[in-house]
């Protein structure tokens, strides 16, 4: 080491470790991340554009449930997407069921509030769209590492800084959740009560949110300096160690899905969809 004045020397022939870019367990996992992102995006937008109950329901069956069964993630998909959609689904159901303007077919009554058939119909349509969106997004995350998508996009020409920001944004969420957990434990150890009623829980959040946010901000300067020290500010493209495989047929699928989405939107705008 001392001979060349460098702290480490090159040694040849060790190559790319086999755990990088290891193929996924199922054919759906092994699809290119951009293909899976395209499926998720077109499914979510098409569900909104199609409207009604049948269209989004068919989309959920074909583009979400079917692939989830093939990928062996149906149970996780149902659990996660339901949890994801639950708050907005409940509010959509209640608002439409009880407050549908001009609804006449009474289903049941709670005091002065009337649940109507028309309201239930619209609520189910909205639920179908919500489930299509949350299901499509959840399926993507259950079968794709976000960093794989970023590497793929970087390979296709996305700037490395944009790629870093996109990747770091996704990765920061679990880091902040973990930090919040540590701070919660630390505050509990000092007597903070985070159990009990809603008001007590809300009061308990205040001494946790502050340290989480301030701690994250305090880390930013050191983190940015650490990035600078590792050549991050260098202009131009960077080396990629590997990139997810892509096939011509997948490119055709992506273009086909985008064309179908454009057609659905055009039909919706022209009023040819019910």
């Amino acid at each position, binding site marked *: 080491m001392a001979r060349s004045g460098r702290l*480490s020397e090159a040694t040849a022939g060790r190559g790319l470790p086999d755990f990088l870019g290891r193929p996924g367990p199922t054919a759906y996992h092994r699809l290119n991340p951009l293909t899976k992102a395209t499926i998720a995006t077109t499914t979510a937008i098409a569900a909104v554009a199609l409207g009604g109950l049948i269209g989004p329901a068919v989309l959920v069956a074909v583009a979400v449930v079917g692939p989830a069964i093939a990928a062996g993630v149906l149970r996780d998909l149902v659990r996660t997407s339901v949890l994801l959609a639950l708050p907005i689904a409940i509010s959509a159901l209640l608002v439409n069921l009880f407050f549908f303007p001009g609804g006449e077919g009474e289903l049941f009554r709670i005091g002065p509030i009337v649940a109507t058939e028309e309201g239930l119909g619209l609520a189910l349509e909205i639920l179908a769209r919500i489930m299509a969106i949350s299901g499509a997004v959840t399926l993507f995350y259950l079968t794709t590492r976000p*960093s794989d998508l970023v590497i793929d996009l970087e390979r296709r020409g996305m700037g490395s800084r944009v790629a870093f920001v996109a990747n770091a944004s996704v990765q920061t969420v679990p880091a902040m959740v973990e930090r919040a957990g540590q701070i919660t434990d630390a505050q509990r150890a000092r007597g903070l009560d985070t159990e009990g009623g809603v008001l007590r829980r809300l009061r308990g959040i205040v001494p946790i949110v502050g340290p989480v946010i301030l701690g994250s901000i305090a880390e930013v300067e050191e983190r940015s300096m650490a990035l600078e020290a590792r050549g*991050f500010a260098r202009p131009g493209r960077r080396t990629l160690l590997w990139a997810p495989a892509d096939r011509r047929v997948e490119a055709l699928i992506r273009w086909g899905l985008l064309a179908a989405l454009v057609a659905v939107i055009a039909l919706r705008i022209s009023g040819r969809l019910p």
Partner: protein
Amino acid sequence: MTLTLTGVGYRYAGTSDAALLDIDLELRSGEVVGLAGASESGKTTLCLVTSGLAPRAIGGLLRGRITIDGTDVDAWPMHRLSQEIGIGFQSPASQLSQVAGTVFEEVAFGPMNLALPRDDVLDRTWEALETLVIRDLADRDPRRLSGGQQQLVAIAGLLAMRPAHLILDEPTAQLDPQGTRLVTEALARLAANGASILVAEQKTEVLAALASRTVVLEAGRMVLAGATGEVLGDPRLPELGVTPPAAVRLRHAARDAGLDARMLDEVHAGG
């Protein structure tokens, strides 16, 4: 390769007081220099200035000259300087890029940024992992490691840049005793292999184990400099806010009690 600071002073942006004054320091190949001093004495500032991050990344006003083998590095961009001088910080977690899913990708992050040929990136990454004896961690998620392991990964990330000099700002400050031992042993291996390191430390035991020379700062000025044994044995050290190593404290206590300090050497040699 020799990194030289001549008459260096530095003032942070938005402040009127100098954080560093009249620093003359030389870091030669194969030499480990320790940096001691109380909190706020200027250790971190000197690390930032020596690495080039101050003023390039954080602003401020720099005086004096910093040269590598006589060449002024003032106009070098950070990404060029980072291939000559690597810097590591106290917090292991904040040095991770946050975008790498494995330790291997984390260590490769720097060379990838330099747009080096892929094989070169791979060689540097394996080499750095092997140098720090953390090859077994290559497929692990860096965010799931202990603090000591994360610090080793951070140092490996610096080594993969193949710098001629390494600047470490209190690398064991946030580590438990086991993490401190892990990092100290790794740095000792680097030092034994001829690495050139400037290491700031509050833990003087770490300096005693690693550094051939030590510099003590007070209010941004160098107030003591010399062979580590002499500096860490200097009676003025506690006044400067630096706790001497346990062996030195024991020696002083023995002397104050009227005992012959050579007896301790015999006990040490016998033990």
